[in-house]
């Protein structure tokens, strides 16, 4: 078993194509997870019992079932009900909604950490509920959450190889097809690992920088 640099040069463009899809799925999945996660967190606080309980159940249900099973449902089962999704769309929805259930927990903790006095001051200033969320609570609650959210972004990134199971042509699936075709696993799999590591190493400090920028008032 010897490392073959010529083979590396040959397969690199294909792997980088796969990496683009991996990054795209992660970015879209993260945005969806953040938005849906915030929605879950807010709906769970609804004074309407039916809304808050239903949301709580849904969140538990999604969190308690494997992402791979959810992806299979989205891509292979839903078409039976007439809902046809492209592989990438199904993958992004699967990743996004699955991680939204974890992010909802981060949002909940961040919102609960906002001192009660801030809600009271907002009321004394006669702000509406929507204005209070928009101008007082979320701008204070979100910056401290960024490290925890960033962990989930990175975790999601590392789970994107699951998308190969629903025919998304991302990094892992490209590497596997190269390996199967050439009967060489060493270079493709090593490169997959190296590329994932490289992106993770760049992403973590970048997200911390983001956190510092948002926290100008501390």
């Amino acid at each position, binding site marked *: 078993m010897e490392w073959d640099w010529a083979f590396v040069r040959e397969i690199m463009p294909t792997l980088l194509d796969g990496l683009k899809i991996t990054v795209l799925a992660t970015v879209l999945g993260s945005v969806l997870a953040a938005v849906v996660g915030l929605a879950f967190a807010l709906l769970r606080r609804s004074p309407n019992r039916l809304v808050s309980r239903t949301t709580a159940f849904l969140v538990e249900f999604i969190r308690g079932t494997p992402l791979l099973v959810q992806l299979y449902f989205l891509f292979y089962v839903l078409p039976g009900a007439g809902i046809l999704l492209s592989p990438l769309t199904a993958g992004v929805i699967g990743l996004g909604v699955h991680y939204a259930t974890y992010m909802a927990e981060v949002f909940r903790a961040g919102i609960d950490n906002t*001192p009660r*006095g*801030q809600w*009271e*001051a907002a*009321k*004394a*200033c*006669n*702000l*509406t*509920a929507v*204005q209070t969320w928009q*101008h*007082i609570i979320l*701008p*204070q609650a979100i910056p401290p959450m960024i490290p925890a959210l960033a962990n989930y972004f990175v975790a999601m990134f590392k789970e994107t190889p699951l998308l190969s199971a629903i025919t998304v042509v991302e990094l892992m699936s490209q590497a596997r097809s190269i390996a199967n075709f050439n009967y060489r696993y060493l270079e493709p799999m090593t490169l997959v690992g190296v590329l994932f590591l490289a992106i993770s190493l760049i992403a973590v400090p970048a997200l911390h920088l983001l956190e510092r920028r948002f926290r*100008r*008032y*501390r």
Partner: protein
Amino acid sequence: MTEPIIDPIINVDHVTKSYGSFTVLKDLCFSVMPGEKLALIGPSGSGKTTILRTLMTLERIDSGFVRVDGDYLFHMERNGRVVPADEAHLHRMRAKIGMVFQLFNLFPHKTVLENVTLAPMLTKGVRAAEAQRRAMELLEMVGMAGKANSMPAALSGGQKQRVAIARALALQPRIMLFDEVTSALDPELVEEVLNVMRMLGTQTDMTMLLVTHEMSFAHDFADRVLFFDRGRIVEEGPPGEIFTNPRHERTQTFLKKIIAAGQRI
């Protein structure tokens, strides 16, 4: 000639409120005339802060009625019947009332100026330039114009509280509620806040209710003092009477303790 009848601006009518088994307001009744300066004193847990928070709608009541400026606070009239107030009614009523808190509760992510301009811009649709002009006038008045662009974290307690007063005034309320606004301050910073309140007392006709442990300030400032104990008003009257010649035994005990703790009245 009979004198013109002036209606009270606040009327608390048989109000009761409990937290679980603890009754914090017991069948409470009192009214406040427009422009009156009222000091609420009494031991902790006596309900004085709760009634202030109730007037700001931060607390709900279990029974009774509160009227502010002629309207029910927690109720509204619909088709001739009195029904619980909806959010729109509460929103309208809150516009008449401002509140300053013991722990300031400034918005830490906004500058001093933004703290004062935010509510007028959002709730009254005041344009940014106009809101800033008025905010600077108010900050000037409380002696904080020089810190307009600072963040609250950079201010001392006394400075924070003066900004909080300006923030409450920005909505031009008819009634101002002051909830132990000097209790969290270092002793040397108390006076700068009291000075602002003295100025408001003499220069405006706002109705002011303050919960305070500063007895000498209450003595000089208030038109009338209410002494609370265990959810009731035990005694009320002009400060000269309450402080120098309290009739009720509980008021006497309370004031003795205050004097023993070293306060001048």
